[in-house]
């Protein structure tokens, strides 16, 4: 078992033991479901919208070269500097070079899962820079030196009391259990940061090919401030974020809001077409867009799972997944958790190290059913299991199946095995639950069913 797998088992075990926390997460997600369903219901044809969205993303991903070139050409024509990065390391180096050149001291960031993916904050901090996350949830997990718990709700695992204690300790604020007061504490701290930051860094939700624009969706206004006030702006985008046409957003923005947070439309949906243009009164003087591959082309090569690149990171599959709901986001040990994380992490970080996540699934298909762009998530989990087994067959598993196949094809052996099983079963009690027990993984939480005293075949023979 890989160390990642045993860590997962350990963390997942600890999380499932905590029934208070599980109830807390279940309540939060229950409220999300009510809001999501209300807005889904306001669509005239939700299934039609999913079909259309899946078709648009298919078009974009299967002509990715064409649309990326179109996107970049337009962006560059308005003075945006575009950088390409094959790996996370290259993306970090590119960004470091920009901030070095600008002699930056402080950086304000708005939420970007791609930056978590490439561990950007670590790299910037090692360079001696002050990096502040401005999304409230990200700000809180950053103060706790934690990774986001959920790709849309970074601190959904925390209660107000814990956040209050954190703010008292880290920011010296007065104790309060009022979410509004807590939010205002963060607002006051972060206001100063926007105004003094030398560089702003954002992620992106969509890259619009025909218009050469980057679309950013947010509720708080932190991304808008990040893209308005610092003199230099850097935007990190995964190459799969492409949409062909500007008007595609008319469909994708409400779908993302509905599935992401149970809203009709997120508070701010903002498009950026360039840095400050001649005659404009504010905005960054320089805008750098960093396009990140980081194994995405590898996933693109897998025609069976290529649709995983359709993902718009709404997080809907996490919210409905019985595994995510019980083990939580941190147990996964990955940037992207839940079903989509279990599907893509083996591609991003190695199949053998991360194949265990594809087994952490009930294969109920709730993820596939909810996905707004119709990614066949639970079948991809099965494909990952198959690919992992083909690439590196598990010796014991293969041995067990060879024995089984021998027994079921030789009636004499089968009947002998039955007899032995019946004779030996009472002895099993002696070793049950010990390391000698061959059925330990079953018997530690369940009763082993008793073999019938007489098989059907014997019974039938006697009756005739």
């Amino acid at each position, binding site marked *: 078992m890989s160390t990642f797998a045993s860590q997962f088992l350990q963390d997942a075990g600890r999380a499932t033991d905590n029934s208070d926390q599980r109830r807390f997460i279940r309540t939060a997600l229950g409220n999300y479901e009510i809001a999501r369903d209300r807005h889904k219901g306001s669509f*005239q044809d939700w299934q039609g919208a999913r079909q259309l969205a899946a*078709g648009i993303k298919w078009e974009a991903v299967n002509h990715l070269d064409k649309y990326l070139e179109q996107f970049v050409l337009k962006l560059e024509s308005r003075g945006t500097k575009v950088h390409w990065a094959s790996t996370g390391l290259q993306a970090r180096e590119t960004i470091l070079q920009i901030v070095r050149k600008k002699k930056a001291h402080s950086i304000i960031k708005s939420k970007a899962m791609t930056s978590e993916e490439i561990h950007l904050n670590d790299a910037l901090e090692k360079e001696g820079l002050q990096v502040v996350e401005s999304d409230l949830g990200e700000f809180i997990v950053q103060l706790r030196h934690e990774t986001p718990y959920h790709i849309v709700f970074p601190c959904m695992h925390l209660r107000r009391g814990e956040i209050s204690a954190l703010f008292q300790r880290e920011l010296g604020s007065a104790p309060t259990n009022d979410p509004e007061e807590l939010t*205002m504490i963060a607002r006051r701290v972060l206001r100063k940061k926007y105004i003094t930051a030398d560089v702003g860094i954002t992620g992106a939700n969509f890259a619009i090919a025909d*218009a050469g624009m980057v679309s950013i969706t947010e509720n708080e206004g932190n991304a808008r401030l990040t893209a308005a006030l610092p003199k230099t702006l850097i935007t990190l985008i995964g190459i799969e974020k492409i949409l062909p046409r500007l008007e595609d957003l*008319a469909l994708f923005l409400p779908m993302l809001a509905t599935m992401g947070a149970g809203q009709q439309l997120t508070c701010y949906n903002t*498009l950026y077409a360039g840095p400050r*243009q001649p005659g404009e009164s504010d905005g960054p003087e320089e805008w750098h867009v960093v396009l990140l591959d980081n194994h995405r082309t590898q996933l693109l090569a897998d025609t069976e799972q290529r649709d995983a690149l359709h993902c718009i990171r709404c997080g809907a599959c996490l919210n409905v997944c019985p595994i995510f709901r019980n083990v939580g986001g941190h147990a996964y040990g990955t940037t992207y958790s839940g079903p989509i994380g279990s599907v893509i992490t083996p591609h991003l970080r190695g199949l053998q190290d991360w194949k265990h996540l594809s087994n952490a699934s009930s294969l109920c298909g709730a993820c596939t059913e909810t996905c707004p762009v119709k990614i066949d998530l639970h079948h991809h989990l099965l494909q990952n299991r198959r690919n992992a087994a083909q690439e590196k067959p598990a010796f014991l598993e293969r041995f067990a199946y060879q024995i089984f196949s021998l027994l079921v094809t030789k009636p004499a052996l089968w009947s002998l095995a039955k007899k032995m099983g019946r004779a030996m079963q009472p002895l099993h009690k002696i070793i049950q639950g010990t390391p000698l027990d061959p059925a330990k993984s079953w018997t530690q939480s369940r009763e082993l069913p008793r073999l019938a005293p007489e098989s059907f075949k014997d019974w039938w023979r006697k009756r005739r």
Partner: protein
Amino acid sequence: MSEREKILGRIREVLKAQAPPPGEALSEPDSIRSRQCLPKVGEPFDEQIVLFAQKLAELKADFQIFNSDTEMKQALVSLRDTAGWKRMARHSGPLTDVLCPVLGIPCLLTDQPYDVHDLEAADAGISECDALVAQTGSVLVTNRSAGGRALSVLPPHHVVLARREQLVADLPAAFELLKQKYGEDFPSMISFISGPSRTGDIERILVLGAHGPKKLTIFVLNTNH
């Protein structure tokens, strides 16, 4: 070979193998199909403005419609007095130029480069917009039509002054309008604002004014210009 060529090369190489498209080919333009899937919006203005007002109420934004300039001026004055505005910021536009001087408080203009501390000190930012979207209760602004990137997001209260003919039915119509109005020459920032800034990050409880405005007020002038 540059990284750009390497990445595009890899993409072209792997795209030689085809992935099956989902479902049938699209015969109609996507925007027509989108409209048939999205929430329904009626044709008549009265229906649309009622929907717009209802959406804004859900979003906890304030909305009022006026039959004359004078009424709108009075409403602005009473807003100033109830909220206790001492300083404001705005940009120059056909509505703001006519209506805002009545407020008589120190005012920062954001049409030209300005000091961000002055904008931060403003109690309210007053702007115009490109369109109002009935379907979602959104205000569509650009940095060209609404005084830059920060005016509509930095001050704690954002007031939008609009005319009735700026109301459009739905999101597809809003994107059509953008394309018609700007052609290829898009402003560098375009934003759909749907309600005051908000967060649900703490226990999924709604709090207004996370980083942007705590209040959003939309005044619509119900006369044709």
